[in-house]
């Protein structure tokens, strides 16, 4: 039934490894990726208590190089790129002129003349086209190297201890949101202390042929569990981190998404004028945390209503997470209903479930700073 369609999908260099590990393969943004191996719940807990290994080779890598690289990247993203130190990484967003989000991404600074932009798999083509369209007369080279790189993420409290076994470089020297070009198992890699789970951990980039060797070695450690897209999503959500297509999109600005911290309005970037204006005029809607007050589960797309049952927003991500009694969610709601502890209804299958607005910090992050 799925044969014809699946055969046209893309595979990462690690596809065969996922099949060997009995990963349940699904179509994810045009890629054949494992949604789970042992079960989402077990995998989620494995990352919180030990170490999880993720295949993130489908993510996109775009290099920007040239004498005007810094000013170009600065124009492209909401962070203050001029403040980045060499080997530092920053989480940021690219915006359209109207202030809404092209994509969220990581920017790696190699030097003032060389940056790596890591973008979402589903947005690679769109992002690359956007970057090219903004090049104008800049003296830079924009290279989409996505097809050449493989990437894995090693996340969890024991991540450093395990990765240290494969490299002579002292991993204590890679601070939170920094990276180094080092050898792992004798293979040239870019290793950053980053990730999207709320845990300490690393993201490792290598040539796509070499990433298989690194995966195979790491997965053979007893402490390491392979983690699929299912737990990848529950982990990032629990850590309060947004996902493109859920919390952020081309229809929402970073300020509405509650990501103002990542927007430096004293720098110049595409979309800034709109964001400054939006800030002056005040927001009309905002992303909030939601806790359901009775049994049930909030899901992406469910309507959020006021106490008169009038629709005032929508759930962007919701789960019943492992080891929690109540469903929690992110919701984009009318600003008049965005206050902490405000009572609301979530409409689940045409019934109204009582809920309240909470902090989006569902857990304390365990980053090693």
């Amino acid at each position, binding site marked *: *039934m799925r044969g014809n369609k699946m055969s046209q999908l893309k595979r990462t260099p690690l596809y065969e490894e996922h099949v060997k590990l009995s990963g*349940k393969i699904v179509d994810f943004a045009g890629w054949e990726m494992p*949604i*789970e191996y042992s*079960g*989402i*719940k*077990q995998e*989620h807990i494995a990352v919180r208590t030990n170490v999880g290994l993720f295949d993130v080779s489908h993510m996109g890598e775009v290099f920007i190089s040239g004498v005007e690289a810094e000013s170009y990247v600065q124009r492209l993203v909401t962070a203050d790129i001029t403040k980045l130190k060499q080997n530092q990484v920053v989480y940021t967003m690219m915006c359209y002129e109207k202030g809404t989000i092209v994509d969220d991404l990581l920017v790696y600074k190699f030097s003032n003349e060389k940056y790596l932009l890591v973008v979402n798999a589903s947005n690679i083509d769109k992002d690359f086209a956007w970057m090219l369209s903004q090049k104008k007369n800049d003296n830079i080279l924009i290279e989409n190297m996505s097809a050449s790189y493989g990437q894995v993420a090693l996340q969890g409290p024991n991540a450093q201890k395990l990765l240290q076994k494969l490299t002579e470089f002292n991993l204590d020297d890679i601070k939170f949101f920094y990276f180094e070009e080092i050898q792992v198992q004798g293979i040239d890699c870019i290793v950053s202390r980053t990730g999207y789970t709320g845990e300490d951990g690393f993201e490792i980039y290598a040539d796509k042929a070499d990433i298989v060797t690194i995966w195979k070695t790491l997965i053979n450690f007893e402490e390491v569990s392979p983690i699929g897209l*299912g737990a990848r*999503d*529950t982990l990032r959500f629990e850590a309060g981190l947004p996902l493109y297509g859920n919390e952020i999109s081309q229809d929402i600005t970073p300020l509405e998404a509650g990501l103002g911290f990542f927007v430096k309005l004293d720098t110049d970037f595409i979309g800034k004028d709109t964001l400054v204006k939006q800030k002056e005029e005040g927001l009309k809607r905002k992303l909030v945390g939601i806790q359901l007050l009775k*049994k*049930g*589960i909030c*899901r992406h797309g469910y309507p959020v209503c006021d106490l008169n049952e009038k629709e005032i927003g929508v759930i962007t991500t919701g*789960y*019943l*997470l*492992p080891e929690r009694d109540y469903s929690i969610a992110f919701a984009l709601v009318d600003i008049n209903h965005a206050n902490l502890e405000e009572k609301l209804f979530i409409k689940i*299958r045409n019934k109204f479930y009582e809920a309240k607005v909470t902090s989006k910090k569902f857990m304390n992050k365990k980053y090693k700073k």
Partner: protein
Amino acid sequence: MKVIEGLYYSKEHEWIKVVDGKAYIGITEFAAHALGDIVFVELPEVDADFNKDEVIGVIESVKAASDMFTPISGTVIEVNENLEDEPQLLNSNPFENHIAVIELKDESELEELMNSEEYTRFCEEK
């Protein structure tokens, strides 16, 4: 994949066990495995009437909510309240944990369902 003889099976992967005109309805191991970790079950109301193929409940895994259909018409006379506190029973032992008991309205509807052999073949073709 475990399939039990003597039960009726639907294409939506429900099993039905008939005892004295009452139909016990649950989901098969195939369905439980496909859903993954089950974390919530919305049971039907007792005394509610359903026509064949209507949604009688919802089974939620970590990742998604899935409708549960009844392959037979009738009135719900009992629900398995254990599933409210322990929905994971559907993963660990799907054939021992029914979801609802329905008083059959039309026994001839059972003839449209599969027996264990037919259902085994149906799953293999999936």
